[in-house]
């Protein structure tokens, strides 16, 4: 049995040696042929025996190149989209600054530009987050405005961010006057769904009146645009009246805002006093 196995292995080995001799002889013969014959041999092989293989490899290569090109195009497209988004952002900031330029000359305090980075996506009111804080001099009680009008006030400030109370927050109240009649009212939001003004039945506030800040309390300087009276509701008691106000600055569209760097020490003063007071930086005695 062992001898048979040995013979079988020798026979197998013999086939191997025979094969390598045949292959070697053929290859050496082929390589010794003159160049024109080799060229003819190549052409005939490529167009007959290896044509299917060539087609498969060619398809594979085309597919591979195509995939590579698609990948590169996708990457380039993503880069361009990102670049476009960045440029759009810059253009938007530039537009905001240009719009704000007309209002800036009327303000007597410096401003800090900031951006709303978080807010309630469903409700108008609530607390919003700004991306700048004490590092830019922003402090509690400062007014937040945009190029169209007031937006809210700073509730708390920390290093790197600040919390802002919007006009539609139920806890926010702002003293306003009609730009036409100079009659006062209180801007408020009972349920956070919209902005309303409460005023006396004797006040001369009419539909379509523009409202501006009164300046009382010292948070908002006098004369900042607030909104327009859109609807007056009559109350049964006939003591106070309520009117719906359409803010000049649509709260849903607010993105880039400015914080009026009015010192907190002036917050409790009346507007007349604030107008004549010397500006003191935050933290000064």
């Amino acid at each position: 049995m062992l001898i048979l196995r040995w013979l079988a292995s020798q026979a197998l080995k013999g086939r191997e040696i025979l094969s390598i001799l045949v292959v070697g002889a053929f290859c050496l013969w082929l390589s010794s042929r003159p160049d024109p014959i080799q060229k003819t041999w190549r052409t005939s092989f490529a167009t007959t025996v290896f044509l299917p293989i060539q087609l498969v490899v060619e398809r594979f290569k085309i597919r591979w190149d195509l995939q590579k090109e698609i990948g590169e195009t996708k990457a380039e497209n993503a880069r361009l989209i990102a670049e476009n988004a960045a440029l759009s952002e810059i253009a938007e900031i530039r537009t905001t600054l240009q719009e704000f330029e007309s209002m800036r000359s009327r303000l007597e305090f410096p401003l800090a530009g900031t951006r709303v980075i978080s807010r309630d996506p469903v409700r108008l009111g609530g607390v919003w987050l700004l991306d700048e804080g004490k590092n830019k001099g922003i402090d509690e009680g400062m007014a937040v405005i945009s190029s169209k009008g007031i937006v809210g006030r700073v509730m708390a400030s920390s290093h790197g961010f600040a919390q802002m109370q919007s006009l539609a927050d139920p806890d926010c109240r702002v003293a306003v006057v009609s730009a036409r009649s100079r009659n006062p009212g209180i801007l408020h939001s009972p349920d956070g769904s919209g902005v309303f003004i409460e005023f006396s039945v004797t006040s001369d506030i009419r539909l379509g009146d523009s409202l501006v800040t009164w300046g009382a309390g010292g948070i908002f300087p006098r004369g900042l645009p607030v909104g327009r009276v859109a609807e007056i509701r009559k109350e049964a008691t006939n003591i106070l009246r309520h009117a719906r106000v359409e803010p000049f600055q649509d709260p849903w569209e607010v993105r880039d805002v400015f914080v009026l760097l009015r010192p907190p020490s002036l917050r409790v003063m009346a507007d007349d006093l604030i107008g004549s007071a010397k500006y003191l930086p935050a933290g000064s005695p």
Partner: protein
Amino acid sequence: MNLNAETRYTLLRAAYVPLALAAQVTLAPSISILGIQPSLLMAVFVLFAFRAGALPAIWMGFVCGLILDTYSPGGAGSFALAMAISGFLVGQLHERRMHVSYPLRVSVLGIATLVHDGIWHCVSHHGLDTLGSFLIRVSLPGALYTMILGAILFAFRPPRIQARNW
């Protein structure tokens, strides 16, 4: 057509080599480092020779070499002879005959690549006087790169622990 499991496995194993040839033509240029290309074909071919033995390796090498010869500008038959001889030599270390450890397999791959390149260089009428510099400057870096790829490939296809006693 009824094929037993062993035959089907052999056919599947044989299909890897032409696939590696296609990968060599398409993928290898994209993974070259400083112009040094690995030989995916040699890595798969040497694994095939370990697994299938010398006889299938000779003919597989011959066929793949002929394909390369058809499309390469060197002397016709040079690739076929180089691959057939490499297959014959590596096939002597057939898994059924002896156990070859993992590091030795990787080393054999490097040597087989050098042998292949040396034979190709000689048969392509490039001259024996440039053989040394060709092996050191061109072949050796490629062989080392091929060994790295082969080390990864062989790790996925480990050798059988015990060789059959023929």
